[in-house]
């Protein structure tokens, strides 16, 4: 019974929208990492992580967000996180993710945030 997880990536203008579907744990986090690496290799520095279908995340998945954020911001991009279910939001909040990442209501709000504030303001 492997961990159910898939990622579908699409584009809205110059923004990559990654739909995380299922559970990100130590088993599936490498696939999440590869998906972000593929976007960066293609020169896509603006990423929305759509978490509407993300039902579970452990520190392995949180570590993926953390490992890329500085590099992405240094090149003028950002990762905006949206549509987080309460259970996953609770995990984000334990570690203080809301202080580091822009976490917004949905994909349109994340696109709007990129227009207004390309990189999260301190």
């Amino acid at each position, binding site marked *: *019974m*492997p*961990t*159910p997880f898939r990622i579908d990536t699409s584009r809205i203008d110059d923004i990559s929208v990654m739909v995380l579907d299922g*559970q990100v*744990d*130590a*088993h599936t986090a490498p696939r999440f990492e590869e998906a972000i690496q593929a976007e960066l290799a293609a020169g896509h520095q603006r990423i929305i992580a759509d978490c509407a279908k993300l039902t*579970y995340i*452990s*520190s*392995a998945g*949180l*570590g993926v967000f*953390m*490992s890329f*954020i*500085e590099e992405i911001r240094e090149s003028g991009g950002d990762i905006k996180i949206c549509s987080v279910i309460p*259970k996953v939001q*609770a*995990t984000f909040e*334990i*570690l*203080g*993710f809301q*202080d*580091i990442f822009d976490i917004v209501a949905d994909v349109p709000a994340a696109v709007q945030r990129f227009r207004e504030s390309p990189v999260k303001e301190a």
Partner: protein
Amino acid sequence: MTDIERKFLLTVPSSTANLALIREFVVAVGVQAGLGDADVGKLELAVDEACANVMEHAYEHDETKEVVVRATFDREVLHIIVEDTGRGFDPSRVPQEKLDRLIAAKQSGGLGMRLIKALMDEVRYEFIPGQKNELHMLKRIR
């Protein structure tokens, strides 16, 4: 009504492919113990983190090893023990840097243990030299 202690045991090969199975096990135990939804979610994450630590650090991805999860509960408390026979690794001794410092240092070390401590009511590590290592985690049933 007498307060009967209930015991559950899961032994799985040390592969991260089994983390989902471990989560299903502890969720089922948590529900049976009478934990609310939020506490079941906390238990699920804490045990996942503890087992992932064993697989990656104590056993260094050796899939011939086994991870043991023991659960015991009565009406007041749920006690989980994650057991391994690997390299003695006390996750509670991993330094816990602030998140922005970890990002600056490009590290994610200690995140799992930080979560476990935040999620469970009591956490302690027992190292029995030459035999086994045990991470004990307690959740009170309110």
